[in-house]
């Protein structure tokens, strides 16, 4: 990928950009463009990738200053890209029959997730599905249930990254005193993968 490693998190760039640092804003959008292109080229036809990326970057540019300080820019902006790609598929479907390539057939349902990201967040059905998935995770893998219960409680209480993670880790250490921060993060990653698997299964089951 055509991007040199950097030593500053994207959210630090974002904060500087939001405070009027035009150099930081330019660097931020150069970085996002490279990442978006990588994803778009895997999902739309090559001659449409640049258009999709430009549209997504336009949305990010208009809205990133309103993003709450504790929200990660990259994950949020990927949601924007996802929705732009979804809209792209929808409009193409209206124009013509499917032109999805063979190795993209399994991605079509994902492309249906179009619409305003804020509206999607508020979608009660999505939240109910997530609740059920987390409950299933907790029943089938209680350790994962504990990790999510403690971490999400800590997120609810707010604070910076260190404060949130330290509070969640302390809750976990009440039951598992030897648990280290690194082990906690690795366990969280595995539990997150399990949660995704449950959500994927739910999506398949419900079409």
């Amino acid at each position, binding site marked *: 990928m055509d991007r040199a490693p950097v030593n500053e998190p994207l959210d630090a760039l974002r904060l500087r950009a939001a405070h009027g640092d035009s150099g930081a804003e330019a660097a931020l959008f150069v970085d996002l463009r490279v990442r978006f292109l990588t994803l778009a080229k895997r999902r739309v036809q090559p001659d449409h990738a640049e258009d999709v990326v430009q549209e997504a970057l336009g949305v990010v540019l208009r809205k990133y200053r309103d993003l709450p300080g504790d929200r990660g820019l990259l994950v949020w902006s990927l949601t924007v890209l996802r929705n732009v790609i979804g809209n792209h598929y929808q409009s193409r479907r209206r124009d013509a029959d499917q032109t999805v390539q063979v190795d993209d057939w399994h991605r079509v349902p994902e492309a249906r997730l179009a619409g305003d990201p804020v509206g999607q967040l508020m979608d009660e059905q999505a939240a109910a599905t997530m609740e059920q998935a*987390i409950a299933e995770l*907790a029943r089938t893998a209680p*350790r994962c249930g504990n990790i999510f*219960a403690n971490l999400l409680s800590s997120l609810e209480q707010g604070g910076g990254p260190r404060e*949130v993670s330290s509070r969640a880790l302390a809750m976990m250490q009440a039951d598992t005193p030897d648990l*280290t921060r690194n082990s906690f993060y690795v366990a969280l990653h595995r539990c997150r*993968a399990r949660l995704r698997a449950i959500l994927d299964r739910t999506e398949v089951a419900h079409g």
Partner: protein
Amino acid sequence: MADRTPPPRSADLLAAYELGLLDADDRVRVENALAEQPDLLDDLYDAAPETQLLLADPGRFAGAARAALDTPPRWRTWLDTLSRPRVLAPVALAAALAAVMLWPDGAPRYLTELADPRPLPAIQLELRSGAAEADAGYHQAMAAYIDGRWHEAAAGFATALAAAEPAWGHRDQAHLYAGSSLLLAERPLDALASLQAAAASPLPPVREQARWQLAQAHLLMGQADAAREHLDALRGSPVFGDRVTDLLDTLGSAP
């Protein structure tokens, strides 16, 4: 406490990154890894809407997890009921009779719920004119598999295998998809032979998929030890390693 465990791989920090837990140094490390590894970026992209949902109302989802943790599993509720003196004797008798009548078909529910027999990735290849009977049968069976017609797919793969020359190039895949079809048709016992044949394949992707499916089949039949044996063989798999570790952890904490 000082953390003397080795620093996790960037990929293992992805969940902590997406949920906003990492310090600046680790965030930079993950963001650089995301720039170098498109597959990792794909993972973040695929999970982005769920992550936003979790962050939008963490208290609600923490409550869902706690409620599930506080609800005793069904098997424990049954045990509590059983332990009441008035019902102990007749229920124990009934259970003994049921065990005699149902065993080995009555698989424990907590094991069957752990099974995750999802369809394998499947792509339909173009069929050339004048293709051999086995290839044509394989093509038809794969079409049925992609459509979710599991019984038809299983029969089709079996027909293709019966028509195939000994050195047929799709033999291992046909066994694998035949076994998967039977598993998805809720016939785990029938799936074993096909999956065992595929598990002997020299091709690692086929072999590992077959092992994973075998573990699912044994879970569906309530055979925890047999499932563990196949999962243990997959511990080093770059594809199944994490899922295997999780499943073995869960099996270890199961009653």
